[in-house]
């Protein structure tokens, strides 16, 4: 379901709509669920011709004046803006089929949209990943296959001005395990974490792989290039790293991996925090430094800086005492130049979702603008849209828009500014 707040002329409107996928419509007709979620055995009897229901529930992207609802296992759904009515499934005029990443990257200068696509059900043997680029007008200008040694869940990637960084983390896709009643996803620390760096229009031959010990990255914040004639050019990647993950199967934690002694049972090992990787393209060396040890996720930046040097990263502070899965009890802003952070404390029993940065104007500085996020007050059982001054998170909110109904915790947020669709 998409929850939207339209802000215009100092006034606000709330609107929520289901993404009316094929599976949704079929289930609505019979009045009950037909397909189970992806941790279960798919419907091999293909009711309505559908093996796995596309839920299109992970994120939204605005590109080429189109609003798409995304879910990486299946293709996008096209939504009407700003009515939020579902137009239908969308294959970019038959240019792409199969899955489509929930985190495509839009180059702020060229307007190109870079994406990944992989298929969960074909991932029986080796992984096969499609990497492609749409022009700002939605024309497919690049599509290439990237070979992976193992089929993995690949939730996000990163771009710089000239390069693309693929994250091959050991979160293995093992669809066959579902047949045995086990979960089809497993973090297996016997494999390393690999970063594939290729030129933007490169292919499998031009990719260069960097390996580090096993760790997990679900979301990147940004990446950029640092040129140095003496030390060699570097790619810097910012993202949220955890030594291990159980995010999709909290009930399958500990167990085998603990028994094998391959995981440390410590506070730290589940924590996800902001990290910086430096890949030296001349020497092939990698440096990994934690930016901070505060548990955070859903990192975002000023998207005008995507692929370029960025000073600030915003994220949600994970409520660690409420494991297994994250809600946030604070909005964090990192100043990477100063090495400092600011936290907007939401206060007692108030939790938020992903915060999105909206610049004050096209030409304003990197942190001049607002951070927007939905907040739920668990005591009052009321939701609101919180608007913070991104320059000073410690200040009182700029505004709080009280919402007419509860907004359940969800995944990713986006902002579509008015001038872009006018």
């Amino acid at each position, binding site marked *: 379901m998409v929850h*939207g707040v339209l802000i215009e002329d100092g006034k606000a409107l*709330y609107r929520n709509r289901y993404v009316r996928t094929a599976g949704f419509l079929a289930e609505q007709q019979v009045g009950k669920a037909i397909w189970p979620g992806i941790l279960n055995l798919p419907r091999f009897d293909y009711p309505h011709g559908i093996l796995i229901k596309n839920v299109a529930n992970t994120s939204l992207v605005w590109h080429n004046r189109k609003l798409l609802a995304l879910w990486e296992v299946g293709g996008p759904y096209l939504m009407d803006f700003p009515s939020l009515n579902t137009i239908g499934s969308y294959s970019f005029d038959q240019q792409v089929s199969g899955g489509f990443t929930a985190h495509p990257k839009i180059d702020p200068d060229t307007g190109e949209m870079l994406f990944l696509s992989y298929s969960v059900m074909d991932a029986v043997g080796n992984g096969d990943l499609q990497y492609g680029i749409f022009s700002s007008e939605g024309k497919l200008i690049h599509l290439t296959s990237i070979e992976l040694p193992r089929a993995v869940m690949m939730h996000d990637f990163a771009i710089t001005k000239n390069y693309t960084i693929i994250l091959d983390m050991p979160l293995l896709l093992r669809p066959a395990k579902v047949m045995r009643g086990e979960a089809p996803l497993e973090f297996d620390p016997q494999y390393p974490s690999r970063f594939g760096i290729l030129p933007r229009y490169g292919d499998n031959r031009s990719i260069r792989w960097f390996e580090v010990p096993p760790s997990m990255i679900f979301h990147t914040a940004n990446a950029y290039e640092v040129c140095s004639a003496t030390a060699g050019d570097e790619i810097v990647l910012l993202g949220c790293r955890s030594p291990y993950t159980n995010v999709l199967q909290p009930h399958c934690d500990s167990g085998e991996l603990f028994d094998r002694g391959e995981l440390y049972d410590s506070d730290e090992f589940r924590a996800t925090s902001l990290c910086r990787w430096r890949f030296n393209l001349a020497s092939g060396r990698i440096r990994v430094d934690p930016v901070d040890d505060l548990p955070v996720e859903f990192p975002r930046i000023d998207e005008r800086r995507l692929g370029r040097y960025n000073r600030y990263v915003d994220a949600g502070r994970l409520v660690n*005492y409420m494991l297994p899965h994250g809600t946030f009890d604070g909005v964090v802003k990192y100043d990477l130049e100063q090495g400092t952070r600011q936290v907007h404390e939401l206060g007692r*029993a108030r939790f938020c979702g*992903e915060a999105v940065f909206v610049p004050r104007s096209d030409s304003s500085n990197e942190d001049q603008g607002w951070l927007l996020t939905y907040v739920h007050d668990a005591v009052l059982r009321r939701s609101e849209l919180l608007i913070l001054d991104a320059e000073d998170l410690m200040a009182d909110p700029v505004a709080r828009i009280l919402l007419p109904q509860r907004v359940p915790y969800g995944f990713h947020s986006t902002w579509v500014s008015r001038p872009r669709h006018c």
Partner: protein
Amino acid sequence: MDVSPVVLAALESSDLCRRLVDESGQPLLTSAALVRLASNLQWLERSGGEVLFRQGENGQSAYILVQGEVEGTIAYAGTSSSKVFRLGAGELVGEMSLLTGLPRTATVTITTATKLLEISTPAFACLLALHPQIPEVLATFVSEREAANAADLENAAEACGRNTVLTKFLNLLLSQNYMPKSFPQIVFKSSTSTQQRIVAGLQASELYKQLRSCATGHPLLKNADLLNLAAQARLRQVRRGEIFFRQGEPGTSAYILISGEVEGQIKKADSRHIGEFQLQAGALFGEMSLLTGQSRVATLRAVQSSEVIELSELTFAHLLAIHPDIPLRLAEFIAQRQRSEILSLEDRSAGDRSVQDLNPERLLQHFQNLSQRVFGLYARVPHSVLTYLSSIKSEKSLSSTVANLYLTNNFAPVRHEIDRDNLVVIGRLPPELTGMFLRNGPNPQFPPLGRYH
């Protein structure tokens, strides 16, 4: 945030703020942090002759003198002698009552027209949490000041050492709903002898021995955790024959026996004596009433003079939050031990306690309730509960448990698609902000099949 520049300037030039610097003399508070603190302070103006507070009164505020002068008088009981002191602009007054909760030790009178900033308890907690080094720096400041004043105070024995002050800070933060995890900055570099005894007592307890990692066998409570707990727990000496609590009384404390011996007696409603048991050093007792809110099921009496650690609800909730595996290990420990006690009494009736409460799952529920009560958390099944459930439950009930985790409270789907304009706005929407904020998320229209995540 609306903060008057006058307040901000007064705060910046105060003694307190000048103290808040790191080793290299750099301020610990950024300008944004100062604004945040300032917005929590109350501006007061008082004229000459007015009394700010009187000795013996209760008081929960400290004050920064912005302008003017005050005079303090400490009167000594039973004599007509007194001690007078003066404080001027920039100085801090009244912080001890805020920290200790004890009555004012002096009467403070305004001498000339005076402007003050009032620091309430929540404002002080906010200050402590603004930078990791602040508790340390303030503890040093306050303890130095108190040491200097000690000679003038009657209860000089109560004069606060650095650790005592840090302990107060810890309790203050807890009472203001700051979670234990959000103030790891309070580090007890050295400990008082009482704290050391409590730490040693905790280390020798059954509880500590049971709270071990399933994987490595290492204790789940680290030294820093023990010190933090010791700072909150109370050490109590109990004379021979003294009664801790009686059956049927309400009770909100649990105890750990450090030395001595304690005897328990359970009687039926008709007062017929039905059983007794002995507790040895290291035993945990009294935790069931703390958890369930029900009355005590037994009368506990010291057989010899004994020493115990008293754990309040707050301390117990803190213990549960230290490591995600603690709730489960503790539940298993309590269930197993209580069960054997109850079973030994079973032939003579099991008292009021239903055996149901001794099921680890039920105990975990009690833990959740306790944490919610104390920290005001939005209750959800913790990680350890899931691990536990996955080890004992059938696939079907596991699926529904996990599904419920993501389908209840604010994970529950909403049913209606609505449009509503002219929403209520607190604050003001910036005119330049024009567009639509959108967020995607799961919202199943029907109860899901199979595993749901």
